[in-house]
């Protein structure tokens, strides 16, 4: 009994304390988020709330040509001793009736109107001049006619005494003709189109890049990738060498092509010629299993031919993109309304030119890296373990030293550290020690799970990028490329890469392993296995995710403009800041329509594919 009560008191106490803690947390939450209904109830708030709400329900979409109708009535302020004769108004036209047709300054008088348009509004002015059309007019109120076109209003006369006749003026406006789109509607239309294409481009870029990345982020594929330390360190050494080679090759090729930059025919001949030559060389050089095995010298020759073929292709790409820039932009200046097509060719070629150098560098890295890996595997298979252990510690120390040295150099550059010992020598030394230790503590022929390392790195990077909101990326992109939709494309594109790569890789992870096993067993290469066993399984979910992402990107691109990233958000935030709520309302309506349409479209499309 006693034993039972004691813990139950404790329990109640703990519960009480828990509740108290929760209360404190929420109380603090109210404090920091400034929950305050007094502000909400304030009259000025209420007014502005109503004003905004009323503006919002009247989006500025249509406008009419307007006909202005003005009616005058003479008046004396103050009443003269001798009232002059005033001709009676034409009873078939709209007219005003002012009792006694005069008044003291600041006196309130009643004005009645007849024969106006029924149910019409307009301002009533006092014109302090003997010329009724004088530009100065003091607004005294707003009239509103009933269904008979009659109104009655009390106005206060201004303190403008004069001996001369002065006037009351009522101006009414009437919509005539058919409604047409307002300027706001036109601007909104332009921007919403920009928004949709911004989302389209961002999705396309994201899809293109996340496709290959998703394979590196798929655990089931990467955990199979293992190699011995010899191959890994030789490959790791090969990469930077290859990248440097690739960069230099790209630079050489570009400087070789530079003299022909302005001669389109020459670029064309060079491009097509080297593309043909490259294709022929590669056709001969790529290993074809039908030929069984080659002898040694042919093998060497094929390797050389492979290299030559690749160089020829790079040359072709450079020449053709150079041609594209030239032809595209000159087309743009001749095509008139279709200038955007020429511009597209020009810009696309420019993009290709810019991307080609890193692509060549990467390809060079991959090539030399894989050569190193192959060499490592060969040694691993043939050399005795003791020799291998020695080689391993050497290579792995070198590789790690290079890696750490590069990292240190990068950090040194960022932080502007000038002491080379800190940025290069120390990191390299640490890397060398780590590499040697790695070699010491692993068996020389033991395959290491390098795939899992790459997988983990890729995942971490993707998670880091994904955790940054696209809006914040837009701010950064604006610094890079300036305000405008291109910054939005970059920001959304980057975010799309990270999130699509994750979604895609989860699909790759959930595929059936059986078909992969079966295709591998037929003697297919790794690439063939991916094409025939993996890709058919992932295409439907990939399409569905891409559609879903486009949908999200359309939503995001509507607000990416808040940060200067172009699209309709740019217009919206401007109008909100200018208190131009009717225009803002138009843009919100447009966003709602587009988002709803995309939602419907993407779910309809997704249903078809899954």
């Amino acid at each position, binding site marked *: 009994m006693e034993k039972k009560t004691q813990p139950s008191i404790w329990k109640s106490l703990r519960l009480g304390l828990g509740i108290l803690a929760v209360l404190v947390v929420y109380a603090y939450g109210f404090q920091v988020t400034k929950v305050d209904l007094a502000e909400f109830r304030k009259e000025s708030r209420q007014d502005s709330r109503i004003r905004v709400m009323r503006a919002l329900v009247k989006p500025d979409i249509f406008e009419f040509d307007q006909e202005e109708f003005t009616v005058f009535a003479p008046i004396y302020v103050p009443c003269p001793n001798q009232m002059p004769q005033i001709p009676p108004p034409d009873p078939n036209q709209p007219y005003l009736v002012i009792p006694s047709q005069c008044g003291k300054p600041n006196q309130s008088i009643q004005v009645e109107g007849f024969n106006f348009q029924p149910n019409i509004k307009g301002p009533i002015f006092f014109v302090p001049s003997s010329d009724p059309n004088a530009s100065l007019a003091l607004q005294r109120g707003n009239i509103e006619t009933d269904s008979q076109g009659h109104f009655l209003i009390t106005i206060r006369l201004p303190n403008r005494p004069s001996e001369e006749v002065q006037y009351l003026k009522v101006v009414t406006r009437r919509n005539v003709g058919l409604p047409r789109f307002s300027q706001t509607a036109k601007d909104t239309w332009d921007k919403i189109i920009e928004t949709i294409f911004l989302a389209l481009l961002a999705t396309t870029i994201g899809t293109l890049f996340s496709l290959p990345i998703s394979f590196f982020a798929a655990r089931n594929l990467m955990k199979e990738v293992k190699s011995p330390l010899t191959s890994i360190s030789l490959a790791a050494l090969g990469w930077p060498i290859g990248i440097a080679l690739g960069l230099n090759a790209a630079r050489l090729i570009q400087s070789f092509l530079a003299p022909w930059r302005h001669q389109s025919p020459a670029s064309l001949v060079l491009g097509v010629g080297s593309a043909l030559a490259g294709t022929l060389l590669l056709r001969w050089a*790529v*290993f*074809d*299993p*039908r030929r*069984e*095995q080659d002898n040694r010298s042919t093998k060497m020759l094929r390797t050389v031919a492979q290299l030559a073929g690749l160089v020829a292709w790079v040359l072709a790409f450079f020449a053709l993109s150079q041609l594209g820039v030239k032809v595209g932009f000159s087309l743009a200046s001749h095509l008139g309304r279709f200038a955007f097509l020429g511009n597209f060719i020009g810009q696309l070629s420019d993009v290709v030119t810019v991307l080609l150098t890193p692509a060549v560098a990467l390809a060079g890295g991959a090539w030399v890296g894989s050569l190193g890996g192959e060499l490592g*595997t060969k040694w691993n*298979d043939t050399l005795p373990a003791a020799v291998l252990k020695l080689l391993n510690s050497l290579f792995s120390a070198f590789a790690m030293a290079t890696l750490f040295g590069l990292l240190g150099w990068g950090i040194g550059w960022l932080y502007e550290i000038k002491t080379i010992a800190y940025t290069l020598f120390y990191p390299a030394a640490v890397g060398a020690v780590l590499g040697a230790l790695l070699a010491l503590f692993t068996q020389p022929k033991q395959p290491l799970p390098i795939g899992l390392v790459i997988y983990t790195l890729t995942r971490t990077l993707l998670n880091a990028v994904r955790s940054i909101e696209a809006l914040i990326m837009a701010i950064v992109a604006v610094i890079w490329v300036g305000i405008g939709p291109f910054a939005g494309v970059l920001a959304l594109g980057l975010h799309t890469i990270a999130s699509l790569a994750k979604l895609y890789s989860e699909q790759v992870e959930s595929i*059936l392993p*059986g*078909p992969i*096993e*079966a*295709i*591998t*067993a*037929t*003697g*297919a*290469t790794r*690439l*063939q296995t991916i*094409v*025939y*066993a993996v890709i*058919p*399984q992932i*295409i*439907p979910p990939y399409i569905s995710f891409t559609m879903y992402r486009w949908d999200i990107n359309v939503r995001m691109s509507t607000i990416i403009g808040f940060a200067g990233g172009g699209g309709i958000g740019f217009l919206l935030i401007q109008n909100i800041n200018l208190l131009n709520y009717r225009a803002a309302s138009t843009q919100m309506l447009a966003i709602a329509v587009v988002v709803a349409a995309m939602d419907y479209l993407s779910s309809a499309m997704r249903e078809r594919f899954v």
Partner: protein
Amino acid sequence: MLEVRNLTKIYEGGVLALNRVSFQVPQGQFLAIIGLSGSGKSTLLRCINRLIEPTEGEVIWKGVNITTASPQELRLVRRKIGMVFQNFNLVYRSKVITNVLCGRLGYVNPAWSLINRFSQEDIQKALRQLERVGIADKAFQRADELSGGQQQRVGIARALMQDPEMILADEPVASLDPVLAHSIMRYLEQINKEDGVTILCSLHFLDLVHRYADRVIALNKGNLVFEGLPQEIDDQKFKEIYGREAERIG
């Protein structure tokens, strides 16, 4: 001639799935592999074409040491060894004909095959294989529209596309009803007798073993516990292979 010497497989985590298994299979033999679930049959078959890397031991086939072959040599070996699976392992979203053509991947030009281009010869060959297993009319349907028995026939047609000299069949009829099982086994028998293809086939039911196999090996917890003719499996041997409590039904 296939020679397996001291084949040992220890999985990560320490499961000893094969323990120094040695045996030989002459070219053209129909060898049945029997044993309880978990006795190591699948592991053995997969170690032969190195879908699973053996921990120790050697597999030598036609004078080539498969266990030490380079990746390229391994592919050349694999393309001559067809494989048939218990769950068929078809690519279900692809067409039947594409599944069959996959058997040709070890032979075709790698570049063209990546964009799904096969020669007219190969396509005709694929149609002939489908005809041979009696489902030529299904060639252009999706693989998941077929019944289990039909799917396994696609699996056999895919193996045949490799012009195999050996077929590894891992419980090819375990997911099929007995009538279908016999029809599938008859195709394997036909391939064995007519084309002289060596067949290694793991099986569950002894009656299938008696009916189709030339020779039997039995595994128990990774150990080779029997090697001989199907008729030699008497009650005593049966208990050794399947354990004391087992009742003989087949």
